[in-house]
């Protein structure tokens, strides 16, 4: 919102702080000033609206002038005349159907109005703060709004039917042609100003075109009202119509201002429309809000909150300069009455008073102090630490971390075997193809592979992120290795490297072949198990998913993996007696796995380890696999007969499984 420096000066007696300095002080003590512009001999300070959301009183120059007066320790001038409005009956009767939606509706009727351009000083005032000058009547309403934060509206009285103004909910389907040329279709959630026949304005938002002030207007009804903030907000956002009036009412304006606004407008109209007369007196339909109790402010408590002692006199001076009334009801205990324009929602508890005093003193004047607290070891987050460990491990092995969005499209979901009916759906997605939450990290990783393959011939990447399922979020680790061309056995190295990565995180991981999913290479996919629990999956992408080259993917459930981490190991004493080892070689049919053969070797207490040594290719596509078996006992050296017996037992078991021994 724009503030004219000269206008503020006129409202604060004796204020002579230069504009830049004033802008700095306002920023430090009241609200954020974004920039300052020159406007002839005046300077215009632009305040960020977001820093005014809690200050309904600052949406007009008088409210801001009050802040300036408090900051610069000068006196605030009130532009509203002191004389009360005439109490004669008003020619117009006001009926407010629901005071909850309209706490106060005040109006004056004027006759002998001459509509013409405003005097230059008035036009200039409005234009300098970004409002358009239209005619003297409309300009006065805008001036009062800009000065007192009280939006007003003038109706051409001749266009109103009947002499009653009703503040009511719109009827379903009721239409209003508004001043901006648009016609709005309303419903019962919209509050309207109406005459006995139809709606004449959208309450707190915009006036109707039918009763707009024109060059031939001679009689006007001047509205100055207060509308419920939520109601105005809802109407404004549903109809997508934001106006200077609606922005102010949304902040919960003070109903006390309606009559003040009328008094100010009366004085101005007499100046800009010579001969104008009041017809009758004030119409005022008002339900006073319940008296708000004063706030008790213990001064010791205030000092503890700020972290420094504030002299009692200064606390009082600050509060009184902001027009709070202060009564000392006990030693170092104030009872503070909040002025009506701050009480609508901003200042209700003693903590709000801490802010008033703190900001006026200036937070620069508070001495930073180290909090004294016992040194405590904070609770650890082992699962989070583990995730970092996984990241470091992956990075150390050449993987680069990526982040992917949490959104997927329905097509992407199906392509990766996810049923959209079992995904969490977004009501207001950023785009129609980002309307589901990812229950798998694979779509993102697939996209990363596709995109980076345009720039690199080989790469490794990983992501740690959450799968979002309806009942839970599950952290997953997905790693991928891509190579455009990796030699004679394409793709094998990538898969086995990922397996090694899995082994770094799960020493006892075992691989079991698994039926391939649609996006997986049919001969290159497996589940990863830890004992009997499923921990993850390892696969190569189906060639239809990868344009050139090969991509291998590892997908691990981090919650599972975390649970399987080793406890502190217990030392086992070193063997006292030497072990002995022998090698065996078997020929097995094509596609018999190394693991399958190894599992066929029977376990006995004397067999300490079985290690796969090497493979030879056989001419008939069978495989020749060699293993080293190490045997030993804890209480003796095994004799050659014993070792021989073990060897025979092993060969017998393998032969029984149909594997040909070739030792």
């Amino acid at each position, binding site marked *: 919102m724009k503030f004219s420096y000269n206008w503020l000066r006129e409202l604060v007696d004796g204020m002579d702080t230069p504009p830049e300095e004033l802008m700095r002080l306002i920023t*430090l003590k009241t*609200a*954020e000033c974004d920039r300052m512009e020159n406007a002839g001999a005046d300077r215009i300070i632009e305040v960020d609206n977001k*820093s005014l959301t809690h*200050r309904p009183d600052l949406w007009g120059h008088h409210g801001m002038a009050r802040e300036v007066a408090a900051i610069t320790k000068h006196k605030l001038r009130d532009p509203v005349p002191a004389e009360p409005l005439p109490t004669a009956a008003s020619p117009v009767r006001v009926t407010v159907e629901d005071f909850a939606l309209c706490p106060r509706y005040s109006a004056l009727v004027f006759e002998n109005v001459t509509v013409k351009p405003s005097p230059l000083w008035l036009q200039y005032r409005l234009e300098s703060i970004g409002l358009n000058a239209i005619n003297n009547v409309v300009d006065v309403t805008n001036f009062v709004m800009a000065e007192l934060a009280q939006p007003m509206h003038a109706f051409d009285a001749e266009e109103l039917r009947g002499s009653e103004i009703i503040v009511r909910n719109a009827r379903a389907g009721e239409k209003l042609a508004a001043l901006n040329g648009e016609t709005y279709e309303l419903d019962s959630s919209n509050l309207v100003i109406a005459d006995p026949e139809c709606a004449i304005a959208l309450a707190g938002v915009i006036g109707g075109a039918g009763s707009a002030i024109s060059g031939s207007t001679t009689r006007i009804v001047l509205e100055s009202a207060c509308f419920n903030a*939520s109601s105005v*907000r809802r109407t404004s956002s549903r109809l997508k119509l934001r106006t200077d009036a609606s922005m102010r009412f949304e902040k919960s304006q003070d109903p006390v201002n309606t009559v003040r606004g009328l008094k100010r407008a009366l004085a101005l109209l007499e100046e800009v429309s010579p001969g104008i007369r009041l017809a009758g007196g004030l119409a005022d339909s008002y339900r006073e809000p319940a008296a708000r109790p004063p706030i008790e402010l213990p001064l010791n408590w205030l000092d503890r*909150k*700020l*972290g*420094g002692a504030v002299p009692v006199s200064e606390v009082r001076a600050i509060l009184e300069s902001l027009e709070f009334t202060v009564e000392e009801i006990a030693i170092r205990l104030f009872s503070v009455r909040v002025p009506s324009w701050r009480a609508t929602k901003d200042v209700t508890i003693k*903590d709000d008073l*801490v802010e008033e005093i*703190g*900001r006026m003193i200036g*937070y*620069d004047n*508070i001495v*930073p*102090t*180290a*909090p004294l*607290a016992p*040194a*405590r*070891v*904070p*609770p650890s*987050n082992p*699962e*989070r630490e583990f995730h970092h460990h996984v*990241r470091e491990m*992956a*990075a150390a*092995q*050449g993987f*680069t*971390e*990526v*982040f*992917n*969005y*949490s959104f997927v499209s329905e097509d992407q979901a199906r392509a990766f075997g996810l049923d959209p009916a079992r995904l*969490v*759906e*977004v*009501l*207001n*997605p*950023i785009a129609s193809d980002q309307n589901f*939450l990812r229950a798998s990290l694979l779509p*993102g990783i697939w996209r*990363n592979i596709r*995109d*980076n393959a345009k*720039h*690199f011939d080989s790469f*490794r990447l990983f992501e740690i992120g959450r799968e*979002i399922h309806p009942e839970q*979020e599950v952290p997953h680790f997905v790693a991928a290795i891509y190579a455009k061309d990796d030699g004679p056995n394409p793709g094998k190295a990538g898969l086995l490297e990922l397996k090694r990565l899995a082994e770094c995180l799960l020493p006892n991981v075992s691989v079991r072949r698994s039926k391939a999913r649609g996006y997986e290479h049919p001969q290159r996919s497996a589940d990863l198990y830890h004992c009997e629990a499923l921990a993850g999956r390892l696969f190569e992408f189906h060639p239809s998913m990868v344009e050139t080259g090969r991509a291998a993917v590892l997908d691990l459930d981090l919650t599972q993996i975390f649970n399987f981490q080793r406890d502190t190991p217990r030392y086992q004493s070193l063997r006292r007696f030497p072990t002995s080892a022998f090698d065996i070689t078997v020929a097995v049919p094509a596609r018999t796995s190394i693991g399958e053969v190894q599992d066929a070797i029977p376990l006995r207490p004397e067999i300490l380890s079985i290690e796969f040594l090497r493979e030879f290719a056989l001419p008939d596509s069978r495989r020749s696999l060699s293993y080293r078996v190490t045997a030993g006992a804890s209480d003796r050296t095994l004799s050659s007969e014993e070792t021989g017996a073990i060897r025979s037992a092993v060969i017998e078991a393998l032969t029984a499984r149909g594997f040909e021994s070739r030792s």
Partner: protein
Amino acid sequence: MEQVCSVADDISKLVADTHIRIEVADTIELIDEVRVDLLGRKGKLNEISKQFGKLSPEERAHLGKTLNAAKQDLESKIDAKKGALELRALEARLNGEWIDLTEPAPGPRPGSLHPVTQVQRELEQLFTSLGFAVLDGPEVELEQYNFDKLNIPADHPARDMQDTFWLKDGRLLRTHTSPVQIRGLETLRPPLKMIAPGRVFRNEEVDASHEHTFYQIEGMMVDRDVSVAHLIYFMKTFLSAVFRRDVTVRLRPGFFPFVEPGFELDIRCLICGGSGCAVCKHSGWVELCPCGLVHPEVLRAGGADPEVWSGFAFGLGLTRLAMMRYGIDDIRLFMSGDLRFLRQF
């Protein structure tokens, strides 16, 4: 006498011959042969000593010394020659083992962590060193935790400032990490110090400075009599560690429903030092993070009595911090998965 002379002659001749053989030997095998010929069981020294039987004891003693001296002399020369030959052989071998170390190393190039992870990790370690717990919260949140319990009721203008992704099941994607304040109060219970880094979501169009998915870090300390003075001290301390230099901060009033008093914390522009530049829009200050004393309603919502406990809280934009730290000018890069960007860190 003749016998003595002949033995003495033999010794002299053996020494002279062997000297020549030693000199001429140019392989280790040859020098070994010389040794064997000289010192072996059937070697020349033994042959000569067999002749000693014919000599008188005085002659034996005298020639014995001569023979010994000859043996020691020849042995040491053989050893020396062998040593030299071995050295030469070693040098020749080593010389032939040149490797071009400028050849590219095999195996994958080193990987790296995402720049946001790096900044996040640094902050986690910093805060842990200050006694803070690190907490996680869900990305899919309940409206209660994201708004109501943070003193942001329905119809509150603050809800406008947070464009929310709503889910069909009534939940939402968290718009800030502040819900973890409530969760922290509920699980840790005061007194407590905690931070909560994480992913947050705002329904905003994406451009070079706006994203719908980004990262924040929430912090909160709740104890008895926590004050504004403590907050300022604290922010200055940890921000100086984050920016790795002394920073000047200023607090000015800011409105956030979950703190009262609430502040915007600015730091003096690190680029121009406060004199004004494009980065700080010529104001000399850069807006950094919202903070304040925890609102009593928030403490109550987390099950803590505000008459007993008080606290401060702050929220830092992690993504923004990473942009400042590394000089990144396009926020969209963080979620792009583009290795040309990610490999730089």
